[in-house]
């Protein structure tokens, strides 16, 4: 699976990336995590508040640091 973290390198984006990594590990899913820091690219996903979480090119959350459990639920649902 391909996960993108949208955000211009703020603390919250790092926290979200960590949680996503932990979630993938817990769910036993092989993921590739990419950070998108360019504001225009971020806005290209229609996201106005960062951090945003994109799973397989689909925006699943924005403006909030999801907990590892929340990310895990999203990962296993897809």
């Amino acid at each position: 699976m391909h996960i993108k973290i949208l955000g211009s390198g703020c603390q919250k984006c790092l926290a979200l990336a960590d949680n996503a990594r932990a979630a993938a590990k817990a769910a036993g899913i092989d993921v590739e995590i990419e950070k998108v820091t360019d504001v225009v690219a971020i806005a290209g996903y229609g996201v106005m508040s960062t951090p945003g979480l994109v799973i397989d090119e689909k925006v699943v959350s924005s403006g909030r640091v999801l907990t590892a459990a929340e990310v895990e639920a999203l990962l296993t649902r897809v």
Partner: protein
Amino acid sequence: MGELFTWLNDQLLRMQWLSDFVTWVLADGFGLDMTSRVAGSVHFFIYDVIKIFILLSVLIFSISYVQSYFPPERTRRILGQRQGLGANTLAALLGTLTPFCSCSSIPLFIGFTSAGLPLSVTFSFLISSPLVDLASVILLASIFNWTIALSYVVVGLILAVFGGTLIGYLRLEKQVEGFVFQSPVSDHDNDGQISRRERLAYARDQVSDIVHRVWLYVLVGVGIGAAIHNWIPESFIAATLGQDRWWSVFVATIAGVPMYADIFGTLPIAEALVQKGVGVGTALAFMMSVTALSLPSMIMLKRVVKLPLLAIFIGIVTVGIIVIGYLFNSATHLLI
């Protein structure tokens, strides 16, 4: 009642106790002669830095709490339901709730425009958002007085409504880069419906985020303020930026346009300038142009709009600020 208000105003907002305390520490603790220049500068620096950080933290916390009810997605929905001047006014008012820095203006611009909000409404929001926010109003009241603070809000809002309306009237949609309209509209938010605990956590995060982002600007701003306050001769300032120099507002505005700083960093500079006899309008014009326009935000905006629209936007805001500056200078007797 009036006395109580004055007392609260002096102690809580102007923090007279802090000023007295700093004087006491410097004079009794370090044996400095408080009439000397060095002591004056040190006092200005310590007192202003502590005061601004206390007010900043308290204010950002309260405002962020209110702001948590209005995430950008909800703001966009609210604005999308209205039309005409009402929408512009609402955009300007909602802009005051956001302590956004210019860095978040691009995602908002794209998000608003791709969802079909008219350019006029988006620009009203973009002008008001960095220019007027509740924290800067309280700080203005603390450093100057309530009349100036409230007048600042009113003219700031008028500039936002007027500037946005004018841009809408000029029909500049073709001046927006095509990809902006094709951007997807995402609506992954909670519509501002979150628990109180989440709001408090959000407000606390905002305080630490913003303090991290602006602390250096505040220190530099207060440093420059302290230098102006005690080291630059009054005659020099009076000759360049004095009330009776017709070009003062013009020069202050143009000098401020490319500069990038937070309003919290510019306030102490404005404070020191006014104490040196610079007109209130001139000082406010400088503050407004530093916060509303800056080189980094222009470079960012250039990626989503074409040059003519960017130039018109800068032109309208600059002229607006200059007009406001002269208005305030000519009405000084009503303000102080």
